[in-house]
C-alpha cells in the first residue's frame, strides 16, 4: 500500500506538470515552471540530506555552482558537449562531496552548518576570484544544449521555454522518483533512523558515517545536476549560483515545503520561486511581504506546508 502511494505521488506530480501548460497565457510561464522544477530537483536532494538523514548543509549551492560551471567550462575548454558536462559536473561534485564529507560529517548541528557554509563560500570565492577561467563576478556564457536542435531536426519544434519546461520537469520527476524509492528502502529507513538516534542506529548495525556520506553525496549530485540545468537554460552563469544566499534559499524551500517530504520540497520550491514573481505587484514592499509570508507559513504550518496540511486533513478525517 505504501508502494502505491509512491506511484500516486509521482502520477499526481506528472499530471500536474503535463496539464499546467494548458492554462499558460504566455511563454513566460514555461520559464517559471522550468525554474520551479530545477529548484525542486535541488531541494529534493536536500530533503534526502536534511529530511531523511538529519544533516544540515548551508553550502549546497556550492555543488550547484560546480554543476553550473562544469557546463560553462567543459565545453569551452575541453570541447565536451554540454550534455556530457552535466555528467562531468555530477561526478566532480560527488567526488568532492566524498572528500569533504568524510571529515565534515563528523560535526553536528550548527557546527556542520558552519563547515558546509565554509565549503560553499570557498567554491563561490574560487569562481569569483579566478577571473581568467570563470569570468569572475560578471560570469560567463554557456553554450546551449544541442538536444533542442536535434528535436527540431525530428520535426518537434519547441520554443526554448517549452523545451526547458519539459526537460526540467523530466529531470525533477526522475529525481523525485529516486528520492521516493530511497525513502521506502532499507537505506532510506536507516537514514531516518540515524536522524532519530545515532547510537541506536549504530547498535543495529548501521554504519552511520558511511550512510551520512551517502546522503551527502547523493544530495550533492542533485544540486549539481540542478545547477547544470540552470546554467544551460540561462546560457549564462555567474558565481551567484554558488553563493550563500542561494544555499539559504534552497534550505528555506526545503523547510517551507516540509523537509521530511519529497513533494513538500517541490511545493517549497514552487512557493519561493513564485513568490517574487507574484510579489512584483507590491513593488518596494516585496521584501517585506516575502519575509512575512515565510514567517506566517512557519507559524501556522510549523512542519512545512505539505506535511502540516496532510496532518490536518488526516486529523479531520478521523
Amino acid at each position: 500500500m505504501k508502494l502505491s502511494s509512491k506511484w500516486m505521488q509521482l502520477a499526481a506530480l506528472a499530471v500536474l506538470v503535463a496539464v499546467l501548460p494548458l492554462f499558460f497565457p504566455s511563454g513566460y510561464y514555461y520559464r517559471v515552471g522550468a525554474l520551479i522544477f530545477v529548484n525542486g530537483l535541488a531541494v529534493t536532494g536536500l530533503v534526502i540530506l536534511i529530511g531523511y538523514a538529519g544533516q544540515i548543509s548551508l553550502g549546497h549551492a556550492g555543488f550547484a555552482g560546480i554543476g553550473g560551471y562544469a557546463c560553462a567550462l567543459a565545453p569551452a575548454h575541453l570541447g565536451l558537449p554540454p550534455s556530457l558536462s552535466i555528467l562531468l559536473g555530477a561526478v566532480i561534485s560527488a567526488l568532492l562531496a566524498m572528500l569533504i564529507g568524510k571529515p565534515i560529517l563528523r560535526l553536528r548541528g550548527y557546527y556542520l552548518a558552519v563547515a558546509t557554509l565554509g565549503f560553499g563560500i570557498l567554491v563561490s570565492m574560487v569562481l569569483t576570484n579566478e577571473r581568467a577561467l570563470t569570468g569572475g563576478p560578471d560570469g560567463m556564457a554557456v553554450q546551449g544544449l544541442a538536444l533542442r536542435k536535434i528535436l527540431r531536426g525530428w520535426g518537434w519544434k519547441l520554443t526554448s521555454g517549452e523545451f526547458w519546461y519539459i526537460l526540467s520537469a523530466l529531470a525533477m520527476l526522475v529525481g523525485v522518483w529516486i528520492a521516493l524509492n530511497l525513502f521506502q528502502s532499507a537505506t532510506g529507513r536507516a537514514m531516518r533512523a540515524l536522524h532519530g538516534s545515532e547510537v541506536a542506529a549504530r547498535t543495529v548495525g548501521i554504519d552511520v558515517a558511511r550512510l551520512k556520506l551517502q546522503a551527502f553525496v547523493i544530495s550533492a549530485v542533485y544540486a549539481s545536476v540542478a545547477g547544470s540545468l540552470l546554467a544551460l537554460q540561462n546560457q549564462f552563469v555567474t558565481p551567484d549560483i554558488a553563493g550563500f544566499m542561494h544555499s539559504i534559499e534552497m534550505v528555506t524551500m526545503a523547510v517551507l515545503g516540509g523537509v521530511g517530504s519529497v513533494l513538500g520540497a517541490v511545493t517549497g520550491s514552487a512557493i519561493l520561486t513564485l513568490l517574487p514573481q507574484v510579489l512584483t505587484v507590491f513593488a518596494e514592499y516585496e521584501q517585506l511581504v516575502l519575509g512575512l509570508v515565510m514567517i506566517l507559513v512557519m507559524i501556522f504550518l510549523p512542519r512545512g506546508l505539505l506535511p502540516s496540511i496532510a496532518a490536518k486533513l488526516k486529523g479531520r478525517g478521523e
Partner: protein
Amino acid sequence: ADIKLGASLSASGPAAFLGDPEAKTIEMMVDQINEAGGINGEKIDLVLYDDGGDPNKARTFATRLVEDDEVVAIIGGSTTGTTMSILSVAEDAEVPFISLAGAIQIIDPVRRWVFKTPHTDRMACEKIFSDMQQKGITKIGMISGTDGFGASMQAQCKDVAPKYAIEILADETYGPQDADMTPQLTKIRNTDGVQAILNPGFGQGPAIVTRNKAQLGIDLPLYESHGVASDGFIKLAGAAAAEGVRLPGTALLVAAILPDSDPQKPVVTAYKAAYEAKYGETVSTFGGYAHDAVDLMTNAMKTGGSDPAAIRDALEATQGYVGTTGIYSFSPEDHLGLDLSAFKMLEIRDGGWTLID
C-alpha cells in the same frame, strides 16, 4: 494604445547602489513624459521589475517582459551579470535593449538589439591612466573590490595599463562588506616605488579605503573610479580624508561649476534639479545612465514609432544626443557611442568637486 516599456533593475540587493537611483530616475522620467502628453500622443506604460542583482531572476523578468508583458523595449541590467542574462532574451525576442552596466563585453562584439549608456570600465581606466601619465606617475598600487564592478575594472585596468606605460606593482582586493583595509594599504605602502594608489570599486569599500589611507598617513595620490562619483562618497569618507582624491566622473557631478558653454550643462542641471526635488537625495552617475537610456529610447520611439524593430533602427541612427553621461552617436559598429571625452577628471577639494581638465 500605450507604449509598453520594460525595465529590470537591481533596485535592491548588493547592487542597489546602482539600481535604486536608476529605478527612481526611470519612474520619474516616464511620469514626466506622460504628463507632457506622452510620445506621439501615446502614453508610456512602464513595467519595472526588481531583480535584486540576481542574474537568474533577471532572466526570468526579461522573459516575463517580452513574453507576458509584451514590451517593445527594455532598459536595465544594472550589473554586467544581470545584463548578460537579459541580453540573450532580448536578442532572441528581437526587442531593443539598453543596458546600464559597465562591461565592454556587452557591446563588444556588437549585438544587433543591445545598446548601453555607461562608458565602459576600460574607458574609466584609460581616463585615469592618462591623467597619471600627465602627472608623471608610472608605478602604482591597485586595491579593488571583489564585486563585479571592482573585479571588472581591475581586469580592464591591468589590461590597458601598458598602453599608458603604467606598471602595477601591487594588486590587492577587498570583499564588498569588509570593514578595514589597512592591511592591504600597508602592503601597498611598503611596496617600493609606488607613486599612486588606484581604487576601483563602489559602495562602502572606497570610502573605507579612503579613510584607512588617511589613518595610515599614506602620502600618495589616490585615484578612485566613477563608481563613487556622488556627493555621498565625500560624506562617507569624510571631507578631510577625501581631500585630493581624483576620479573620472560625468558632467552630472559638477553641474553647478560647468561652464555655461558646455552643451551638457542644461541637461544635467535639469535632471539634477528634478531628481533632487522629487527624491530629496543627491543624484548619482548611475541615475544619469538611466536618464540617458530613457531619453535615447523615447527619442527613438518619437522618430521610429512603437515597433521594436523600428525603435532599434532609430536608436542605432542616433547622432549627437546630449545626455548626462556624454554625447552619444551610435552606429552599426558602435552601440555605446561615447568616447573618452565623456569622462571628466574630477578632484575633491574642500569637500566638493572640482574640474581639473
